[in-house]
């Protein structure tokens, strides 16, 4: 498939598709960070994670419409407001879900998987009832449109760059929170020994709830980023859940660096292959590769050897 192109052309294609894949990378990374926190730290599988993302996307959509209608002079900055709102709304829903559902199922990971799948169906239908079955798109402020031309073949989309900068900031924030703060220490203590953590005075229930709602909140931010990549519909989140899980597992569930690396690899592979193959075959090839690698190295790329 490469033989039709010269080396220079190939280089440009890779660079172009690479930059085009930045938005996808952002969505994958934010989704995966949320999942990795919830799954890696708590062992809980949240199949409704895609629906949390879509909730963030709808919040962004509403925010964009409101600002355009009532505060048009602020439109240039609405995206940042939307990100904060998306985080707050999804995190709140996350806390509610943890209280109603998840906390009863901590020792039954497969059951959590089924229950959160049920939750995802309910949320999908809720979105359909409220927002309609049609997909909605978000208008971008003018400064985020367009692109920077690096040379005559490579265009770097500005919105992709903005979203990626925000994503990397959030990833850094998550790292600091999980590994450099008291909350992170408490979370990791609960992960390693729940009984002991409780005995030394950590409120394990509170830590669980905060961790889960933090993971969901980050999914909400992923939703804001998602509005840059695709149009928002009730079932759009479902398409991402498998990919995101593969990102998390591929990176090694407990490693944040692994998550970043694997989100980058998978999004770039997909974006680059899409240029050469049809979109569906690019996806098949990426997923098959990831699954095969996981079969060869089930602990993920960045896991360390521990006493089982």
């Amino acid at each position, binding site marked *: 498939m490469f033989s039709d192109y010269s080396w220079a052309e190939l280089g440009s294609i890779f660079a172009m598709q690479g930059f085009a894949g930045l938005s996808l990378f952002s969505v994958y990374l934010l989704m995966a960070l949320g999942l990795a926190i919830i799954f890696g730290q708590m062992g809980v599988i949240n199949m409704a994670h895609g629906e949390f993302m879509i909730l963030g996307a709808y919040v962004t959509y509403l925010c964009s419409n409101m600002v355009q209608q009532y505060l048009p002079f602020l439109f240039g900055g609405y995206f940042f407001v939307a990100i904060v709102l998306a985080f707050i709304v999804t995190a709140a829903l996350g806390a509610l879900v943890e209280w109603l559902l998840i906390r009863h199922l901590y020792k039954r990971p497969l059951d959590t998987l089924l229950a959160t799948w049920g939750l995802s169906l309910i949320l999908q239908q809720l979105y359909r009832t409220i927002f309609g079955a049609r997909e909605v798109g978000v208008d971008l402020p003018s400064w985020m449109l367009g692109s920077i031309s690096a040379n005559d073949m490579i265009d770097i989309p500005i919105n992709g760059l903005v979203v990626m900068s925000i994503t990397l900031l959030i990833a850094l924030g998550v790292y600091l929170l999980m590994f450099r703060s008291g909350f992170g220490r408490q979370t990791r203590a609960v992960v390693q020994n729940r009984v002991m953590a409780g005995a030394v005075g950590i409120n394990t229930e509170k830590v669980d709830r905060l961790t889960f709602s933090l993971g969901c909140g980050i999914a909400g931010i992923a939703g804001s980023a998602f509005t840059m990549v695709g149009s928002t519909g009730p079932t759009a989140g479902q398409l991402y859940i498998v990919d995101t899980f593969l990102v998390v597992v591929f990176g090694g569930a407990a490693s944040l660096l692994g998550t970043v690396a694997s989100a980058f690899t998978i999004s770039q592979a997909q974006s680059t292959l899409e240029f050469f193959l049809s979109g569906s075959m690019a996806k098949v090839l990426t997923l098959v590769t990831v699954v095969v690698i996981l079969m060869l190295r089930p602990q993920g790329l960045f896991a*360390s050897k*521990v*006493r*089982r």
Partner: protein
Amino acid sequence: MSIRTNTDYMLALTDLSVSFDGFKAVDDLNLFVDENEIRVIIGPNGAGKTTVLDLICGKTRSDSGSIKFWNEEISHLNEPRIVHKGIGRKFQTPSIYEDLSVFENLELSYPRGHDVFGALFFKRDSEVSDRLQEVAESVFLEDHLDKQAALLSHGQKQWLEIGMLLIQNPKLLMLDEPVAGMSISEREKTAELLNRITRERSVLVVEHDMKFVEDIAHKVTVLHQGRILAEGDMDTVQNNPDVIEVYLGH
């Protein structure tokens, strides 16, 4: 008496090492167990006692060194193969099938029908039931065969697991803290049980309970930070200054 070579021992661990994430859990360990010997491994928490058992039974792979059983290298074999060689392992927390009856727990451990189709067409004949009955009696569970294993007391669960090992008739029995959490009377019964069942096999025990160790041990090995600190009979080890230092001093 001539110098003994490795081949004389039933179990010979030589230069065995394993590390987890940079931490050396077992460090150049050499350990030899004779036929019909009861060997107890003691040591402070984190000394690598359970890891040694994990290495022998194949649960953990060593980084280097050799494990020989009857002079045959077994460190590359997987767990079931090691079991078939004649090594049985009891875990620290009772690991039994709580949803099944005592009888079925023992039956699943009976050394026949180990492959898929063997299990599918397994027939419960009188040979099987006789043997199960016999083992159940030896672990004080003959009156509880019909009982669901989850309903047994903690001590009974420990005995059931020992019974599940006995059915396999292993040549080397490895027990990880067999009396942890037992009442005094249960502990005495267990010591009696171990003394009885160890007559025609070797036993490797990890234990904290010094009274119990004194009751059963032929020879004691003290582990500290993945290395052997002292080895010998109970008196020698107890009077060893290094051991006293590790247990009492700082």
